């Protein structure tokens, strides 16, 4: 039946998928998709624990702030990717080996 472990399983799957994307992809934007998956798995965990164990809304609030931070992270990260592309004409992660352009 639907219990805490169902949500934990889904969240685990998301986390593994995110890690796999981050390891296996060489495209920076694809890696950022992986980061979104990982952040979402964490947020889902918070919300699920808050329903099944704590019965208060602190977990929801935590998930809300995770979503906020994920949005800020995506904004800045993608800006860096775009700037990187303007300089190097590529978004391959292996080309980002230097600290200065």
């Amino acid at each position, binding site marked *: 039946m639907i219990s805490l472990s169902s949500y934990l399983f889904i969240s685990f799957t998301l986390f593994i998928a995110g890690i796999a994307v981050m390891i296996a992809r060489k495209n920076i934007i694809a890696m950022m998709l992986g980061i979104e998956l990982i952040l979402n798995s964490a947020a889902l965990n918070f919300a699920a624990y808050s329903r099944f164990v704590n019965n208060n809304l602190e977990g929801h609030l935590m998930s809300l702030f995770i979503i*906020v931070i994920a949005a800020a992270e995506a904004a800045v990260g993608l800006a860096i990717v775009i700037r990187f592309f303007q300089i190097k004409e590529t978004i391959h992660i292996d080309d980002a080996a230097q600290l200065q352009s």
Partner: protein
Amino acid sequence: MTAYTLDVYMPVIILMSLAVGLVLVSVFFAQILRPFKPSSLKEQAYECGEDPVGTAWSNFNVRFYVVSLIFIVFDVEGALMFPVAAIFRKFVAIGEGAVLVGSLLVFISVLVFGIIYCWSKGDLDWVRSFQLSDEQVNQLKGIEEKA
């Protein structure tokens, strides 16, 4: 603080599946009824009668990104303000409104500061005007005078 069951989401799921169903049914009927005679000319992308040159999936101007960047910040701040706005009346009714007004105004003023910054830096201009240096202006004046 009324309790509810998950049945409230039933119409949402039903409507979404109706949308999928409508698309499937209409595309299926269209498949049966319509003619199907593909030719390479028909399948060309429309470019005013010319042969298409290159792909459309190329780099775009970065201003589209800056717009979506400002948008997402406003979106997130809106999402944070909605629950606070929803309880505002209650707090005013019990005489705690000043706290909420304070925190909301601080929140909004930070937002306003962001938009003022973007405005002053020209991120809100779709067509950017570039400031020419004095040398370039003089050069242009020289060209004008020659003409």
